[in-house]
Structures are given as structure tokens and as C-alpha cells.
């Protein structure tokens, strides 16, 4: 009899064995169960009784194998009840042969869904089994990596052989979806987000409070390409384990996560006991937005570096490592100074100059080398806000993004650049600049405008801009635009007299 438990963001199969033997009447569970599983004794007993079953006055021992894995969660109630019934000959054993059973029991025998059903479904598929669980919306359909799912409302209906199929999410007709056409003005910012989306560049938005940074970032997923079937399975599994709704993921919308700046390290990269996927894993294949970046604690941001480099989170515990995927696009926003109004047209900044300087140098923090672009978002005029901007809707913006990605993909396929790590030399080669462009770029990078780190980032952004215009070669205009999008460095602080 097979069930499964969640570890990290994956389900691993667990065999549920039961023996009913003579001895002191009792009900024992062995095989590293956690407290929740220990308590399932009472739930199983009551649920069986409510169906008119009486437990035999004999010694009942459950074993959860492999016994060295710590098992968690209430999903073992249903399989244990079913296994017991099979052992007592109440259920034909071969019915359970090709099933993985997961579910929590209530005292009256109703079966409740547990978190992570998508993970269970994928695990069952790998084992060549069918999943039997409580009625749910969270099921992958028409996707290769998923198996047949049977649902069952209660132990009673299980007896009677009434099984159903997972329901589709109720369709919300008036679903309030966001769109870039709601955002008036912000032409530069929209263009920058489009570039970021096309090239998967980390982007930093700076501007006073209420200027629309969050509003812009929230609309970023609407211009990203749809999730592929494989990505849907990955993202849905993680969301399902975390107990989040997977409705939008199933529709192909990329996840958008924006953790509050009070988030802890465990909340952001995952952790806790049992280990739960963090925000970076929930943002897998999507967008991670760090609103008010300087307010995040430094060690939390430091903890983000490794996942960003590897595209996955590794959490090390005494009983082994748990690896969870975390490949996302990074978006951050920040005020330009502690009071937020530095450089604003209408409202004067009240911060002392030393505070502004300290704040600005802190903005990138430990993640400074993870941002390719930086834009200023200003508060829009009243007319712009009211008018909206029907011309640049998410759909039209997305088309350009898709075209650029397609172009870059073809370009990669033709060359062997994709197979090597990107170095400055290979990037320069990819850009294919002509003489005039090259000398322009040299002038810019030597003329104190670009720092060493910025040169590489500028080039890669310029390459993306050229991709958006479907150009093989990077031109002067592309470089110039990339330079205006570069991160604020110490050079701009100096220009403003913020340093000595």
C-alpha cells in the first residue's frame, strides 16, 4: 500500500504496512512519524467507527517505510485506514495495487485534502501509480508528468466505490487581471521593464512613494512568455506544497511574489521544520519583487546570493540536504532617500545630505551585482494617471518580448555562444559591433562613465535591446540606451556632490 510524504518541495513515496496480530490490543505507528501522524490513531479509529467498522481487539502495528525518512503531515490518515481495511479483508487487496493514497480523515470519515497534491501526483506518476485523494482543484491535467487522479469524498463512499475526478477551478468571469494599459505615463519605465523581461535582467526601480513602482512590477508577469508545460508542473508543485493557490499557474501565468521587507531568511529562501519552500522557490519561473529593498535586513539579502547564482536553494539539515528550485527574475524597488522625495518635483526632500548618500550607497546592498538595470520612476501627472495608456497594453508589449526572446534564441542556436559561460570577450563577440560602435563603446567605458562591472552589464543589456529590434549587430543607439539604464554608481553620487 503506497502513500507519500513531502520533503522540501517534492513528494517521496512511502509504503504503509500494517500487521494485525494477537497480543495486547493497541494501535502503534513506527517509522519516524511526526506528532501529526501519531495523532492520526484517533482520527483513523473514529473515522472507521463512523462507517460502522469496529477495530479488532488485537494488536495493530503500522510501519511507514523507508523507516529512516522522517514523515510529516496528516496525509497518512486515509492510507492507514485503507491499509487496515485491506488487512482485515474488507477491501480487495488488488484494488490498491496501483494506487497511491493520500488524505486526511475527519472524525466522521470525510476525507480532507492535504497540501502538496500536485507533488503527490507527480510522485505517483514516477512510481507508475494512480493517485487517490480528497476532492480537489489542485491537479495537473493534460500534462505529461501527471497521472490519473481519483477523488473520494469520504470513507463511506470509498466503501461504496464512488470515485470522482478532480474538479476544474471555478472560472471567475470578472477576474480582475492587471494590465499595463492601466498604467498611464511611465513610458521609459515600461520600455525598461520590457527590456528586462526580454533579457531576464535584474531590474531596480527608484522613485518617491506612490510613483507606481509596485504597480509596474506587478504587471511584469503579464508581459513574460507563458509557462511551458514543464514549468507549469514545477511551479505548481512548489505552490501546492506551500498550500498556495495554483489556479493562475495552471493558466500559464508566471508567479509573482513580493515578500514584505520584514521577511526572515527562512521565509525567503525556505526552511522551518518541516522544511517549507520559501519565497524564492515560490517565485520559481516567475518574478521575485523586493519592494523597499534597503529595508530588508542585510543577512536576508546575503542569503539570496547563493540561490540566485545556482538557480536553486540547498537547505542543509542534520538528516541531509533538501534542494528546491529557485530560478526567477529579480525586481526591486527603493526610495531614493530615507524620506523618499529626493529629486521629486513637487515635494522637497527633508533628509540631511549624509543620510541620502548613505542610503543611496546602501541601495544595491549585497545584491548590487545582481541588477543589470536601474530606472527612475517618477510620480505621474494627474492627466496621465486618469487617462491610462491603452496604446501600450500588456499584449502588445508581450509580443515584442516574445519576438526578442525568439530572436535571441535563434541567434544562440546559430553560434556556439550558448554552450560557454558568458565572458566579456564572448559578449563582445556576440554583440558584433562595427568600428564606429566599438569606438563609441570604448569612449564610454574609458570616460569614467562605466565601472568595470558596469561594462559587462551594459553590454548584455545592449544585446537584449538589439534583440528587441531584431538586429544582429549592436549599434550606437543600443549602447546608449543601455548606458542610460545602468545602475547608479559612485560616479553619480560624486556628480551630485554627495561625496567629498
Amino acid at each position, binding site marked *: 500500500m503506497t502513500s507519500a510524504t513531502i520533503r522540501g518541495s517534492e513528494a517521496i513515496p512511502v509504503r504503509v504496512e500494517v500487521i494485525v496480530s494477537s497480543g495486547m490490543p493497541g494501535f502503534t505507528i513506527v517509522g519516524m512519524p511526526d506528532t501529526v501522524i501519531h495523532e492520526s490513531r484517533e482520527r483513523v479509529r473514529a473515522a472507521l467507527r463512523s462507517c460502522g467498522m469496529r477495530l479488532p481487539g488485537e494488536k495493530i502495528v503500522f510501519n511507514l517505510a523507508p523507516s529512516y525518512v522522517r514523515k510529516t503531515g496528516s496525509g497518512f490518515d486515509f492510507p492507514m485506514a485503507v491499509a487496515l481495511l485491506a488487512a482485515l479483508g474488507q477491501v480487495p487487496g488488488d484494488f490498491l495495487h496501483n494506487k497511491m493514497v493520500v488524505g486526511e480523515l475527519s472524525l466522521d470519515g470525510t476525507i480532507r485534502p492535504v497540501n502538496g497534491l500536485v507533488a503527490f501526483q507527480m510522485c505517483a506518476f514516477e512510481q507508475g501509480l494512480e493517485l487517490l485523494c480528497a476532492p480537489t482543484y489542485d491537479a495537473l491535467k493534460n500534462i505529461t508528468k501527471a497521472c490519473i487522479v481519483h477523488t473520494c469524498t469520504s470513507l463511506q463512499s470509498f466503501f461504496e466505490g464512488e470515485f470522482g475526478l478532480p474538479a476544474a477551478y471555478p472560472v471567475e468571469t470578472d477576474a480582475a487581471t492587471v494590465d499595463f494599459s492601466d498604467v498611464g505615463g511611465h513610458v521609459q519605465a515600461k520600455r525598461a521593464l520590457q527590456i528586462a523581461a526580454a533579457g531576464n535582467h535584474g531590474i531596480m526601480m527608484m522613485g518617491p512613494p506612490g510613483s507606481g513602482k509596485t504597480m509596474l512590477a506587478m504587471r511584469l508577469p503579464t508581459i513574460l512568455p507563458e509557462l511551458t508545460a514543464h514549468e507549469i508542473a514545477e511551479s505548481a508543485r512548489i505552490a501546492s506544497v506551500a498550500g498556495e493557490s495554483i489556479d493562475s499557474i495552471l493558466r500559464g501565468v508566471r508567479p509573482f511574489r513580493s515578500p514584505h521587507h520584514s521577511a526572515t531568511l527562512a521565509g525567503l529562501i525556505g526552511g522551518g521544520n518541516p522544511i517549507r519552500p520559501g519565497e524564492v522557490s515560490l517565485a520559481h519561473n516567475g518574478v521575485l519583487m523586493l519592494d523597499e529593498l534597503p529595508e530588508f535586513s542585510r543577512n536576508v539579502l546575503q542569503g539570496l546570493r547563493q540561490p540566485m547564482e545556482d538557480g536553486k536553494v540547498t537547505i542543509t539539515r542534520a538528516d541531509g540536504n533538501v534542494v528546491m528550485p529557485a530560478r526567477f527574475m529579480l525586481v526591486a524597488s527603493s526610495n531614493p532617500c530615507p524620506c523618499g522625495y529626493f529629486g521629486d518635483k513637487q515635494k522637497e526632500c527633508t533628509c540631511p545630505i549624509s543620510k*541620502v548618500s548613505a542610503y543611496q550607497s546602501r541601495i544595491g546592498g549585497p545584491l548590487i551585482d545582481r541588477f543589470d538595470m536601474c530606472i*527612475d520612476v*517618477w510620480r505621474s501627472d494627474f492627466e496621465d494617471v486618469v487617462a491610462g495608456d491603452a496604446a501600450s497594453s500588456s499584449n502588445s508589449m508581450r509580443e515584442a518580448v516574445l519576438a526578442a526572446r525568439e530572436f535571441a534564441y535563434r541567434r544562440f542556436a546559430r553560434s556556439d555562444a550558448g554552450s560557454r559561460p558568458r565572458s566579456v570577450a564572448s559578449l563582445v563577440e556576440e554583440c558584433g559591433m562595427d568600428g564606429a560602435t566599438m569606438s563609441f563603446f570604448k569612449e564610454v567605458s574609458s570616460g569614467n562613465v562605466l565601472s568595470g562591472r558596469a561594462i559587462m552589464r551594459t553590454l548584455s543589456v545592449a544585446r537584449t535591446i538589439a534583440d528587441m529590434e531584431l538586429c544582429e549587430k549592436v549599434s550606437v*543607439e543600443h549602447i546608449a540606451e543601455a548606458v542610460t539604464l545602468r545602475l547608479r554608481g559612485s560616479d553619480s553620487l560624486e*556628480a551630485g556632490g554627495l561625496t*567629498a
Partner: protein
Amino acid sequence: MTSGSNFTYIDDSTVKHGGRTFKLYAGPRLKGERHVVERFAKDYPSQLLDIERPPERLYVIGEPDCLRDGLAVIGARKATPYGLACAERFSAIAAQKGVTVISGGAYGCDSRAHRAALDAGGRTVAILGGGCDQVYPSTHFRLFQEIIDAGGAVVSERDWDYPALPFTFRERNRIIAGCSRAVLIVEAGLPSGTFSTADDALDSNREVLVVPGAITSRTSAGSNKLLYQGATPIIDDETFEDVMFSLFGTLRCTPCADGKDPAENSDQLLAALRAQPMRLDDILVAVDAPREHASDPAAWLRTRLVELEAKGVVARFPDGRYGPASL
């Protein structure tokens, strides 16, 4: 002293004043000859006696002699590159003519004026608010040490260890005005500490020289108001040198050639940015692209800006605007 001067030490590193706490400076001390110049002593700068409440004594690190005369160059801490460039330019000219440049050692215009004077091989005096061992801002420690090493002085009316509290800066402004023969204001907002120094200068009958700014620029509102009230406008090197001649008797020398690219002077974009720093989208409205680039003015503008930035003519400000990097 004024009633605002009460403060209590909380511990070795903090002091409480007016309900706020302030961190004390704990870095290294400035090296140099230390003098305490009493009022009526031989070394005491006599022109200081003109001002209201002349300081009882001056605490000097460096050369007390250079306090006798000089030109004060002051401006906003939160300065634009325009103000900074003006501070540098006029301070350098004064230093080249052997005139001591006096300023407050603060962020922005003040530190640029000191720096330019040092670079021009001149002497300069920093008059601090707190005591000379309470270096403020602490990041300027090296600048102050260079000032002393170059034969200048770091001065305060406060005891060596007196904490740098807000009111001390207002008070020291009168000494800046008092020590100097004239006060040049390169950029001042309204209201601002620089503007109040101008008042101090007028009270003690000092000449007030002002660099005008765009009337739309908030950071030049104070400067322009002073001009309206009758201050002497400094509109180019020539006028500055004329004024220097009449004040200090320094000779005027005409530069042989202006190294500037004549094309730059007729550049509409540069002219617009010189008048007022702007954001990218504002520049697009203010400046017309040449006809051959009319189809994509934004691309033209970005290319131009980056070119100018590479040349060091235009700079991107910390608030995201573009403006002139130098004059």
C-alpha cells in the same frame, strides 16, 4: 553663549542636546601645530572684531596667520553639479592669485572649494562648527589634514573637544563672514545656512558676491534673491577677476585661449541642460531632435547624452536627472 548651547554627555560616544542624541567623533586627531588665539592677542584676526559677538578665542590647528585675510567661498551642501563646478572654478582662481579661500568644510560646495584651492596650490581655511577634534563631517578628515599640511588652518571658536551640534554651525557662519573680506555664494537655496551666512556678511559690512542660477532652480533661489537685494553678481571669470582686483588688488590675467569646443556653445541640448538639469522625458519635451532623427528622438537624445557624459560635459545626478558636469 546662546541658550541653545546646553548639552549633556550620555556616555563616551553620545551626547544629548535639545531632545536629540548625537554621535561623537571617535576617529584619529588632526596633526599639526595647535594654537589658542585669545581675543586682543597679537595673532587674533583684527577684522573679526567688526562682527557682532567676536569669539573670545580661536582654536587653530595649522597656521593662524592665514586667518588675517581671505575670500569666503560657500554654498549648499545638497548642491547641484552647477554649484559644485562654480565653487571649484572661482576658488581655484582665487587660490591662484594667492588669496586664501575660507569655507566651512561641509559637504558639497564647501569641500569642493577647499579641494580646488588645494589643487591650485593655494592656502585655505576650514572653519568648523564643533571643536577641531570633533571632525565633522568625519569623511572629510583627510581633506582637513591636507588643508593643514598645505599651510592652511582648521579653526573653531569651540574648545578642541566640543561636539559638533547643529547650533554651532549657525554660529560659526558669522566667523566665516567675519574672517573674510568678501563672501562668494555659489549656490544657496531658501531658506538655507548659506543664505544666513550672507546675512551675517551684510551685518558685518562684508561684500557679498553671488553666482546667479536659473530662476526655476530651487537650489539657486537664495542666490537669486540676494542678487535682487543688491549683491554683486559674478557672471563669469572676468567679472570675478574685476571684483578680486578691487577687493584684493590682484591683477587680472587674460587666458590665452578658451579650450572649449565652439560647437558646444551652440548646442541646444547643452544650453538647455545648463539652464536647468532635467529628466530624460523632460528633455525630450524641451529640446527638439535634429530633423534627420525626428523619427526616434529618444534614441538620438540618449546617444547624445551618453556621448556628452563620456566627454565629462554632462553628468547624471543622484536623483536621476541630467545636468552639466562642469562649466
